[in-house]
């Protein structure tokens, strides 16, 4: 019981980061798989609605390991909240709480604000922008860039690919721009 309690606390960066890093050699040793989550979206498109688009005309079955991997991620989410659920609210920077409270965000119990991410919030303009537009940009941007945080920032950088460094810098630049300049406007919607 003590062990489960220990695991249920949020893991610090120096545990989380190295474990994520070890996913790279683990997947390579398991059969030369290169770590990258966003390509699963391409495989789903290729498998379900290729619509005669050349970008989706490839043998996605050769990459089916990737679909098993993302199914695992989903199950991992379920495992975390059933066995290792953190009973405490998150420790957040008071500056962030102060800023977000100004936009009517009052729920800080979970990993994300229920005021913005819930089925009910989906019908509000800001919830729609965050979830529908945000999701679209994640899908479009990752394929345009050829990878995501795992494919470029972890796998690409581990393999010393300088285009991955360019991509990572652009991920961060894009995030800084939107979080600081655009998000305050969106949260007022």
């Amino acid at each position, binding site marked *: 019981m003590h062990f489960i309690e220990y695991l249920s606390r949020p893991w610090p960066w120096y545990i*989380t980061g190295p474990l994520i*890093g070890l996913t790279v050699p683990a997947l390579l*040793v398991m059969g030369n798989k*290169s770590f990258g989550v966003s390509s699963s979206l391409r495989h789903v498109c290729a498998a379900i609605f290729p619509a005669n688009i050349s970008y989706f005309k490839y043998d996605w079955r050769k990459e089916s390991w990737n679909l098993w991997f993302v199914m*695992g*991620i989903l199950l991992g989410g379920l495992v975390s909240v059933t066995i290792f659920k953190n009973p405490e609210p998150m420790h957040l920077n008071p500056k962030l709480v102060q800023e977000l409270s100004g936009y009517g965000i009052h729920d800080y119990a979970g990993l994300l604000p229920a005021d913005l991410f819930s089925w009910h919030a989906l019908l509000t303009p800001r919830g729609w922008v965050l979830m529908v537009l945000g999701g679209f940009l994640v899908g479009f*941007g990752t394929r345009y860039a050829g990878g995501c945080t795992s494919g470029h920032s972890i*796998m690409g950088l581990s393999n010393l690919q300088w285009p991955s460094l360019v991509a*990572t810098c652009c*991920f961060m630049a894009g995030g800084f721009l939107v979080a600081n300049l655009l998000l305050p406007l969106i949260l007022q919607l």
Partner: protein
Amino acid sequence: MIPTMSEKETAYIREVNTDFEVASLHEDFAQEPPVARRLAAQLKFLLAGICFGVILIKGEVISWFRIQEMFRLQSFHMYGVIGSAVVVGMVSVWILKKGSFKTIYGMPIQLHTRAFNRGQVYGGLLFGFGWALTGACPGPLYAQIGAGTTVFIVPLLSALAGTWVYGLLSRRLPH
């Protein structure tokens, strides 16, 4: 066997491939032995995914709040996570290369290189916008659904739509 696509189409995709994550589209992709393609062999990737999902949640990497703190320089957490992940990944890859290690099927470890194209800039910025809005990169989209935030089915479907639209326009976009 019924061919699922013409050889010409596949050749075209390979020629213009900018995807860092799809190893089978690389010219020197080595075919795996049949045993590696069995269902039982795929289960280890399910297990690896479960571990990765738990890590994402317990490390709070999937938290919209942590992502906002990162983009406002209000917390070191995400920088520590990504930075230490990269260092451990780099050292691991270096060891795998130096030691000429093999996969569990006895094949040499294969790593692919990719050329620069402008998509990494334009696409990278667009993904950055989406990351700041949803607070999730693709891994967390799946983990959130599993963790009970079922509304994340919507961003996941949107991300699929975004991927599909990119596929539709990819030949016409600057790369």
